[in-house]
C-alpha cells in the first residue's frame, strides 16, 4: 500500500502521443451531412479509407474533415495528385481522383516521430456495389505483405468488395519469420480455373505456435463480400469478418463451380485430433441493412454490417442460400452447385431498389474454421460464381 503511494507519486507527465490514426471522417457540403452523403459508414483501416457515396449526390462543395489521434496532424499529400489534362478546375480534378486511384493523406503523430499515409478512395454506383457474375479474374498483390486481394470492376472502376483474413495472416508470417509470398497465404489465386485465367484458391493453414497460444492454431482460407478488421483477430475473431455490401436486386440462387479436397487431419482449437473429414462452406445471405441499423438504436455507433456472430441468425436476415454438402468433390473435375435462396421474410421492393439491403457471399476452406476447427491443407477452388436474380 505504502509503496503503491510511493510509486504513484513518481508517475511522470504523460509523453506526447506516438500514434497517428485517422479515427473518423466527416463529409459535408453546404446542405448535407455524413449520413446523407454516404451509403455506408466510412471503412477506415490502418492505411486506407473507402467512402461509399450515395447515388445522385452532388459533391461539388464537398468538405472533408478528419478525426485523428489526439495531437496528431493530417495533411493532403499534394504530390499524390495527378495532373488531369482534361480537367482545368483543380477541385474537380481531385474529386475525380477520389473516385479513381484515390488521394493520399499523411498523418503525423503528436510527438512528430511517427507518420503514415492513408489512401482515401470514394466509390459510387447506381446499381449496388455487388455485381452478379464473378470470374475472379481481377486480383492484385499487396505491395508490402504480398497477399492477394480480389476486386470487381464496375463501370470500369475497381471495387474492393471481396475481403479475406489475409491481412491478419500477414502477422502470422511476420511472427513465424516466413517470407511473405502470395502462396503462403490462405486466400490466393490458382491457374486451375473453370474458365478464364484464374480462380480463387482457399487453403487452411497453420498459424504456428503464436496462433496456437491464442487458441487460434489454424486459419481457414476465406473470401467474402464485405470487409475485414484486423483489430479483434486475437480477442473476438468472429467480429473481424464484416459481411455484406449494398445490393439492389432480389436474389433467387447462387451458382458456381467448385473443387474441394480435405486435409488429412481435422483438429480443434486446442489442436486435439477430431475423427471427422473436413468440409467446405459456401453461402450467401441477403439482409435488410436499414432494419439492422434501426434495431441498434440504443447503441451510440450502430453497425451497418453483420459479422461471424450473427450472419446466419440476425433478425434482419431475409434470405439464405447455403451449400448443403461441402464434402470433398469426386475426381479431378469442377462440381457445379446451384443453391436457392430460402426466404424467411418478404423483401420490400422499393427499399431494395434504393440499396437498403446488403448481400454477403461467404466461402471457406474449412466449414468450422471460424471456430478454428479444420484440417491444415484443405483446399477449396471456386470459379464462375453467379447470383441469379429476379
Amino acid at each position: 500500500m505504502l509503496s503503491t503511494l510511493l510509486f504513484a507519486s513518481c508517475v511522470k507527465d504523460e509523453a506526447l502521443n506516438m500514434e497517428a490514426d485517422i479515427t473518423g471522417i466527416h463529409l459535408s457540403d453546404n446542405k448535407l451531412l455524413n449520413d446523407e452523403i454516404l451509403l455506408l459508414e466510412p471503412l477506415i483501416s490502418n492505411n486506407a479509407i473507402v467512402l461509399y457515396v450515395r447515388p445522385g449526390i452532388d459533391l461539388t462543395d464537398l468538405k472533408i474533415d478528419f478525426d485523428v489521434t489526439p495531437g496528431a496532424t493530417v495533411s493532403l499529400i499534394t504530390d499524390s495528385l495527378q495532373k488531369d489534362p482534361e480537367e482545368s478546375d483543380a477541385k474537380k480534378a481531385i474529386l475525380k481522383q477520389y473516385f479513381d486511384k484515390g488521394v493520399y493523406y499523411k498523418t503525423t503523430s503528436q510527438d512528430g516521430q511517427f507518420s503514415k499515409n492513408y489512401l482515401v478512395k470514394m466509390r459510387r454506383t447506381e446499381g449496388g456495389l455487388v455485381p452478379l457474375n464473378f470470374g475472379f479474374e481481377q486480383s492484385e498483390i499487396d505491395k508490402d505483405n504480398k497477399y492477394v486481394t480480389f476486386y470487381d470492376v464496375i463501370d470500369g472502376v475497381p471495387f474492393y468488395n471481396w475481403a479475406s483474413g489475409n491481412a491478419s495472416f500477414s502477422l502470422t508470417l511476420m511472427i513465424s519469420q516466413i517470407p511473405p509470398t502470395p502462396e503462403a497465404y490462405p486466400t490466393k489465386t490458382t491457374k486451375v480455373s473453370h474458365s478464364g485465367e484464374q480462380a480463387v484458391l482457399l487453403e487452411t493453414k497453420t498459424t504456428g505456435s503464436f496462433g496456437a497460444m491464442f487458441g487460434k492454431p489454424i486459419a481457414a482460407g476465406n473470401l467474402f463480400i464485405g470487409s475485414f478488421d484486423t483489430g479483434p483477430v486475437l480477442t473476438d475473431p468472429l467480429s473481424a469478418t464484416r459481411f455484406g455490401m449494398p445490393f439492389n436486386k432480389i436474389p433467387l440462387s447462387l451458382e458456381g463451380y467448385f473443387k474441394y479436397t480435405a486435409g488429412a487431419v481435422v483438429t480443434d482449437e486446442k489442436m486435439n485430433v477430431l475423427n471427422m473429414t473436413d468440409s467446405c462452406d459456401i453461402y450467401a445471405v441477403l439482409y435488410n441493412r436499414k432494419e439492422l441499423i434501426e434495431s441498434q438504436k440504443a447503441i451510440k455507433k450502430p453497425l451497418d454490417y453483420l459479422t461471424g456472430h450473427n450472419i446466419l441468425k440476425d433478425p434482419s436476415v431475409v434470405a439464405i442460400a447455403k451449400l448443403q454438402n461441402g464434402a470433398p468433390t469426386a475426381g479431378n473435375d469442377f462440381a457445379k452447385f446451384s443453391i436457392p435462396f430460402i426466404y424467411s421474410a418478404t423483401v420490400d421492393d422499393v427499399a431494395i431498389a434504393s440499396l437498403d439491403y446488403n448481400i454477403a457471399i461467404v466461402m471457406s476452406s474449412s466449414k468450422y474454421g471460424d471456430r478454428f476447427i479444420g484440417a491444415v491443407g484443405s483446399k477449396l477452388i471456386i470459379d464462375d460464381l453467379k447470383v441469379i436474380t429476379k
Partner: protein
Amino acid sequence: MNMKYYIIALVVFTFTMIAQADEKVKQDTVGNNFSIDIIAGGKIGGAAPLSLPKEIRKINKYTPAVPFLLGVRANYQIDQKWGVILGLTFEGKGMNADATVKGYKTTFNANDDPNENMRGYYTGDITTKVHNLYLSIPVLATYKLSEKWNVQAGPYIAFAVKRKFFGEATNGYMRNEVPTGEKLIVDEAAYDFSKSVRNIDVGASLGTSYNINKKWFALAQFDYGFNNIMKTGFESISFGMHNIFMNVGIGYKL
C-alpha cells in the same frame, strides 16, 4: 549447470566455516573476535526502474512476492569499532505489479519460443510477476556505534538459482512493430522473459542492527542492485530494472 556446482561449493564452504567457527568458539582460541550469526526476515521492494519511465501511467497494484531471506554470517571483529562480515543468504527478490502503460515497447511470445513473438507498442494494463531466488554473498564492513547499535555497508554478489519473470497484458491493444502499425486488440497475451533474467546480480547493501540481548538482534538493510536484472541485449522492455529491496529481520548469535 556450472551454477549448480558453484552453489554447492559455496554451501559446503559456508558450512565448513560454520563448523570450524563452532569448534573455535568451543576451544575459545579466537575469543570474542569471531562469531557466527543466523538471520531470517522479510522484505519489500521489487525489480524497478530507477525512476518510473513515462510509459508507465499508473501503478494499480503492487504486492511483494517471495519476500524472504535466510542467511548465515561470519563476523570478524578487527578492533573495538570495526569488523567485517562474510555472509551467505538465500533470498527471494520479487514482486507482483499491475500497471497501466501507454506506448510500452514490448514483445509477446509464444510459449517461450524466442523465434515466434510479436513486437510492438502496447497500451493497456500489464502485470509483471518477478519471482527470482538468489544465493547472495555479502561482504560488509561493520561499525559499532554503541553497545546496542551497529551499522553495516558493503557490496554483494548474488547468483540466481531460480529465475522467473512473466506476466500478461489485458484490456489493451498492441501496435505491430511501430506505433503507427496495425492495431490489435489484446485481451490476454502472456509473456515470459524468465530466460532473459541475468544469472548474476551485483549490488551494495547498507544496514543497521540493534542488539536486543546477548543472543538476539534486529536487522534492517537496504539492498540495491547495480546492474539491470535483465541480460544485455534484452530489448523487450525499453527501460532497465534494478533489484531494490528493504529487508527487515532478526538474527541469532550462535
